[in-house]
């Protein structure tokens, strides 16, 4: 029996249209309106965008998001890669170590946030109790994760570093798929670990790494949302951890400014697209 490919694709296409394209189109239209979820939207042209760029909170949120992506994404990739290279072999402890590396990503985001809220507690939290000794030796106070802007930003990034489980699993699989004899050949040629990493492992894993880089950049705008909502509540003031996603959420659902939030969402999307295009170009050039 011959089935039309369109028929086979139908469920996916339907989902794509209903869950992605239509909401996207609606967001684009709403960005040019004032809409409070209660009364019908009113067309306001570019007003939302003009207001956005005059809004200091939006500018801070934008800056926060860009910094977050610029620091968290490479670090996450590096950590996932490091763990994958450490743990791709079979060994007695590797099974449990792999589970440990992958597990945080499996914890529901909110529960994960609450856990860190406790970990970061400035007085009773285990992190600062551990850091109290070393900090005192250095003549410093332990980081104020919840009350100092940069410490809080670092905290949100640290939180994101432990959820690389999915990347880790992909990279372990990518590493295990590399041919063994290539490494044996390198051993016979007496290549050093660094040479092997630089000349063999890295280039062979580059496609997987490139894909993850692009994907994680896209995800980074969402990645910071729950931690900022649950742990720092967008603070410490002024808006140290108010990322674009939280900005959008607040305006849409707390201040009922859906149109304004839609405009911010569009800016966020545009930035993501630019970042992804830049990376794709870079990766392509690197391959030539």
């Amino acid at each position, binding site marked *: 029996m011959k089935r039309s490919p369109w028929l086979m694709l139908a469920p996916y296409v339907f989902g794509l249209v209903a869950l992605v394209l239509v909401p996207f189109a609606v967001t684009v239209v709403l960005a040019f309106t004032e809409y*409070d*979820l*209660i*009364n019908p939207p009113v067309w306001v042209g570019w007003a939302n965008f003009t207001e956005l760029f005059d809004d*200091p*909170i939006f500018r801070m949120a934008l800056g926060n998001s860009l910094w977050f992506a610029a620091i968290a994404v490479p670090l996450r990739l590096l950590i996932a890669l490091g763990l994958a290279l450490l743990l791709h072999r079979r060994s007695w402890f590797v099974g449990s170590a792999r589970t440990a590396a992958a597990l945080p990503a499996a914890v*529901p985001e*909110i*529960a994960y*946030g*609450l856990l860190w*809220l406790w970990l970061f*507690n*400035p*007085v*009773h*939290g285990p992190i600062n109790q551990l850091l109290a000794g070393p900090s005192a030796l250095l003549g410093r106070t332990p980081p*104020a994760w*919840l*009350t100092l802007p940069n410490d809080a930003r670092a905290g949100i990034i640290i939180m994101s570093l432990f959820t690389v489980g999915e990347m880790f699993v992909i990279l372990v699989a990518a590493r295990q798929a590399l041919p063994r004899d290539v490494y044996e050949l390198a051993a016979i040629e007496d290549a050093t670990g660094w040479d092997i990493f630089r000349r063999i492992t890295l280039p062979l894993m580059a496609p997987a790494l490139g894909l993850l880089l692009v994907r994680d950049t896209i995800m980074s705008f969402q990645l910071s949302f729950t931690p900022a909502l*649950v742990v720092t*509540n967008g*603070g*410490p*003031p*002024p*808006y140290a951890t108010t990322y674009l996603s939280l900005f959008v959420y*607040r305006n849409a*659902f*707390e*201040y*009922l400014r859906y149109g304004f939030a839609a405009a911010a969402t569009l800016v966020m999307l545009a930035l993501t697209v630019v970042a992804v295009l830049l990376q794709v170009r870079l990766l392509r050039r690197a391959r030539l």
Partner: protein
Amino acid sequence: MTRKLIAALAVLALLGGCSTGTAGANEPVKLMVFGSPDELAAYRTLMQAYKDKTGKSVQLVEASDRKDLITRLSTSIAGGEPPDLFLMNYRFYGQFAAKNALEPLADRLTASSVIKAGDYYPVAMEAFQWQGRQLCLPQNVSSLVVYYNKTLFAKYGVPEPKPGWTWTDFLGTALLLTRDAAGNPVRTSGESEGAPAKASVYGVGIEPSIIRLAPFAWSNGGEILDSEQKPTRFTLDSPAALEALKNLVDLRLAYGVTPTDQEVEAEADEARFANWRLGMLLSSRRSTTALRKVKDFEWDVAALPVYKKPAGILHSDAYCMTKGSKNKDAAWRFIEYAMSAEGQKMFTATGRTVPSHIEASKSDAFLDGKTPKNAQVFLDGIPTIRRVPTISTWPEIEDVTYGILENAMFRGDRLDTVIADIDKQTRPIFARAQQ
């Protein structure tokens, strides 16, 4: 911390796909509220009483916190399936009132044979009048009071607050209560020499928010806004308001009688109070249910300290009916019951509220002799209570000012910059409310 936890769990539930189902004439009336488990239990008690009396059931729709309630309410209104009723503070109902999402209750109130407008404290009723019409009906009326740990006062020989006490008395009391681990008075900030000492008990817990500042500014004869009805800007630069603001931030900056920001993040004030680490706590009636669980010390409430004249700030939540409700008559009957003397007495017995019903508030149901013994303080303050304006963008105003005031109190930002920042950032938000 607890509130964050509840909020987070509720979001989890939301993501888990819990839906509220569809409403219809035969469905139970849905009432959306948020609150701690104690508060939610109080609502269930009321609903059970209503069911026992009328055979009609009311369904409680629980939100995790105020912001979650706004989110869920607005999305359910947009989705065409709003709850019939919700309970909301007058500071936050403005955005729904302005957007015409509420069913005015004025006509029903006039026609009612069960309740009448004159039975309630006018200050609370007025807070829920929008463009001259009664939109929602206030369930409670609380002022800001000082909760204090009597046992701790006795332990350190600190005199208890007296009616009419001044800000200076208040500060002195707080200083006497601020103690180190050995129980000696300690200065954790200000002019103390060397590294700031660590306090294990602080004098007072007060959050650096505009609604905590407002009653003191008023008491000092000042105003916080240029207009009560149509505010366009904050007037914190007026001498009276500025003095109140300076005194407020000095509690931490100059005298160190309030916990530091780190300590507040580590342990919320209410928990700190319950754990003997705070001598006084500024809060509304709201804290009573939680504190009644405290068994190892005695506590009571006192009136706010006074600058020039007594002033308080209104805390009041009201039953509001959504315009999109499909069950308005049934919803109204529940409001009538909840607002009646009987319903108010029943609800106040849970400890959660000061009834807005005048007779109920003066009855044994409220003045029941339970802690706090000085419950009369709540009623005595009502005549001098004022309120912040009910404008549609007030939630944003509170969020924006809170961050700036936090930095003033904990980071020691210069007050002229603080005031300028508040002014600059809130003007556009006030302007948006006028549109």
